[in-house]
C-alpha cells in the first residue's frame, strides 16, 4: 500500500505539474514543502532528544564531577575501562539482567495463560479482561507504594497472610534475600496485563480454519496448542517479549519507589545506579557512561524489535 501510495501521489504530482502554468508550479512546490512543514515539530523533538544524547555520550568520555569542577577533563574511555574491574558495575549488570529475565518470563507465562483462559469473547471474559487493564493503568511508582503498604511488616495484609503460612518475620523488600522477589511481584502485577492484552488480540485474530479442521479430526488439544496455536501466535509473543524486555531492563519507577536500590546495593539496577551517581555522588561522567552502556544493550535489543515490527507492519499495511 505504501508503494501504491507513493505511486499515486507521484501520479497526481505529474498530473498537476504537466500544465506549465505558474500557479500550478507554485502549488507543486507548496506540495513538496508541505510534508516538511508538517513534520517540523516532530523534527524539533528529535533534535531535542539527539542533542542531550550526544552530550551524554560526550560526558561519558570525561572526568566530570559537579562538586569538583576543576578536575573536569577529557579522559577517553577511562570511565568504561574502570567499569571492567568495578564490582558495583557488575552487580548492576547482573541485577538488571536478572530482573528483566525473571519479570518477562513470569509475565509471559501468566499473560499467555490468562489470554488462553479468556480467549472466547463471552461477556464475562470481556469484562474480566477490562478489569485487568486497571493494574496496567496504575502508575508503576504508585503501584510500588501500594505494595509497600501491603508488605509493611507491622500491618501489611501480605505480611499477615505470609505469617499465617508460618513465615514469621518475612520482611519483603527490606530483606536482601526477598527484595528482588518483592519488586518482581509488583512488576508482574503491573505488566502482565500488557502481555495478556497483546496475546489476546493475537489469539482472537488467528484464522479459524486450522482449529476447526483439528477439532473435526479429533486431534488432541496439547497437539493443537503446541503445533497450531503457539506457532501462529509466535509473532505476537515475540513482539510482547521484546517490548517488555526493553522496558524491564530499564526499570526505575518500581525499584526506586520501593527501596531506592536497597537494601544495600541489592536492587541497584542501571537507572537507579546512574541516578544516584548523578545526584548523590554528582559524578556526571560515570553516570553518563553507565547510561551509554544501558543504551547499547537496549539499542541492540530494539533493533531486533524494530526489524520484527516492520515485518508485522508490512503484513498489516501491505509491503512497503
Amino acid at each position, binding site marked *: 500500500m505504501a508503494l501504491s501510495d507513493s505511486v499515486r501521489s507521484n501520479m497526481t504530482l505529474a498530473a498537476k505539474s504537466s500544465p506549465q502554468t505558474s500557479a500550478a508550479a507554485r502549488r507543486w512546490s507548496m506540495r513538496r514543502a508541505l510534508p516538511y512543514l508538517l*513534520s517540523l515539530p516532530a523534527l524539533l523533538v528529535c533534535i531535542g532528544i539527539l542533542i*542531550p544524547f550526544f552530550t551524554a555520550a560526550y560526558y561519558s568520555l570525561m572526568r566530570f564531577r559537579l562538586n569538583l569542577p576543576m578536575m573536569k577533563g577529557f579522559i577517553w574511555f577511562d570511565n568504561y575501562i574502570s567499569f571492567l574491574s568495578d564490582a558495583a558495575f557488575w552487580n548492576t549488570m547482573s541485577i538488571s539482567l536478572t530482573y528483566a529475565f525473571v519479570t518477562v518470563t513470569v509475565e509471559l507465562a501468566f499473560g499467555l495463560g490468562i489470554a488462553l483462559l479468556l480467549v472466547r469473547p463471552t461477556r464475562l471474559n470481556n469484562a474480566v479482561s477490562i478489569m485487568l487493564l486497571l493494574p496496567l493503568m496504575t502508575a508503576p511508582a504508585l503501584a510500588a507504594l501500594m505494595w509497600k503498604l501491603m508488605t509493611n511488616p507491622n500491618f501489611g495484609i501480605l505480611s499477615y497472610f505470609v505469617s499465617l503460612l508460618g513465615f514469621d518475620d518475612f520482611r519483603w523488600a527490606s530483606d536482601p534475600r526477598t527484595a528482588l522477589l518483592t519488586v518482581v511481584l509488583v512488576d508482574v502485577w503491573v505488566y502482565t496485563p500488557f502481555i495478556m492484552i497483546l496475546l489476546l488480540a493475537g489469539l482472537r485474530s488467528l484464522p479459524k480454519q486450522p482449529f476447526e479442521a483439528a477439532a473435526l479430526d479429533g486431534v488432541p488439544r496439547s497437539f493443537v496448542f503446541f503445533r497450531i496455536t503457539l506457532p501462529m501466535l509466535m509473532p505476537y509473543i515475540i513482539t510482547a517479549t521484546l517490548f517488555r524486555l526493553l522496558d524491564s531492563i*530499564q526499570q526505575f519507577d518500581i525499584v526506586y519507589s520501593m527501596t531506592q536500590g536497597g537494601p544495600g546495593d541489592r536492587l541497584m539496577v542501571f537507572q537507579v545506579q546512574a541516578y544516584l551517581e548523578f545526584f548523590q555522588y554528582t559524578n556526571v561522567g560515570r553516570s553518563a557512561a553507565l547510561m551509554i552502556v544501558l543504551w547499547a544493550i537496549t539499542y541492540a535489543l530494539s533493533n531486533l524489535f524494530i526489524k520484527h515490527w516492520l515485518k508485522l507492519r508490512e503484513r498489516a499495511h501491505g509491503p512497503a
Partner: protein
Amino acid sequence: MDQTSTFEKITRGILIVLVLLFFLFPIFWILLMSFQNNDQILRIPPSIAFEPTLQNYTALLTGKLETAAGDLDIAFMRNLGNSLLLSTCAVLLSLALGVPAAYAFARFKFRLGENIAFTLLSFRFAPPLLVLLPLSLYFKQLGLTDTYVGLIWVYQLICLPLILWIVRGYFEDISPDIENAYRIAGHSWWRAFSRIAIPLARPGIAAAALLAFIFAWNNFIFALILASASKQPVTVGALAFVTASGIQYGQIAAAIVLSVTPTLLLALYAQRYLVEGLSLGAVKG
C-alpha cells in the same frame, strides 16, 4: 471447543476468580485502608468490618495533617493539580504537533519523514535518564528547571512518539481516495485534512490521546529530576508524602487512591479505545 465438560467449566471459573483476586485485590485493599484510621489499620488480624472514616480525605483536601508532633502541611492537592495541568497541556500540545506530522508521514513518502519516525521510534526504547541527565544541566542554563513550560516540553518525549505512531497507522488505513476527490473538487489541502482525514481518523486520535494522557500522568522519572516540590505531579508527590508523613498510613492510602483514580476511571470509560491503542501501538505501529 464448544462441548466443554463441567469439570473444565469449574476449573476455568476458579482460575478466573484467582486471576481477578490477584490483580484487583491490591486496589480494593488500598481503597479500604483509605477509609480507616491508624488504629484500624494496625489491628491484627486485619478485618474488612470497620467503621469507615473520611478523616484521611479531609486531611488531604484541607492540606492539614494532625500528627502527635503537631500539624503538618501537606501540598498533596497541589500535586494533583500539577498532574492534571501537566498531562492535559502535554497531550494538547502533542496533538497539535503530532497529528499533522502523522498525516504527513502517512500520506507523503519522503526520506526525512522516515528518518524522523525511526529516530523517535528507536528513542522510544532508549533509557530516559540518558536524555534526562544532560537535559537537566541544559535546563539549569536555560532557566527551564522547575517550570511548567519545561516539564510540558519534556513530556513531549512521552506523548509525541505515541501519538505519531498510532495516528499514522490510522491515517494509513484510510484510503486517500476520498481526500483526493475532495481536493479535485477544488478544496484546499487544509480543508481536506481537517474536514475529511481528521474526522475519519478520530477513533485513532482519541485512542492515542487517551494513552498519551495516561502515560503522562503515570510518568515518574521526568518530574523527579526536573521539578521541585511545588511543580511535582502526584507520582513524585506521593513518594515525598510517604517519606514526610512516615506513619500516616491512612492518608498515604487516600493519597494513592486519589492519584490513581483519574487514570483508572479513564481506562474503564475508554477501554475499547485503549485496548485498540495499546495493541496497535505495540503491534502494528
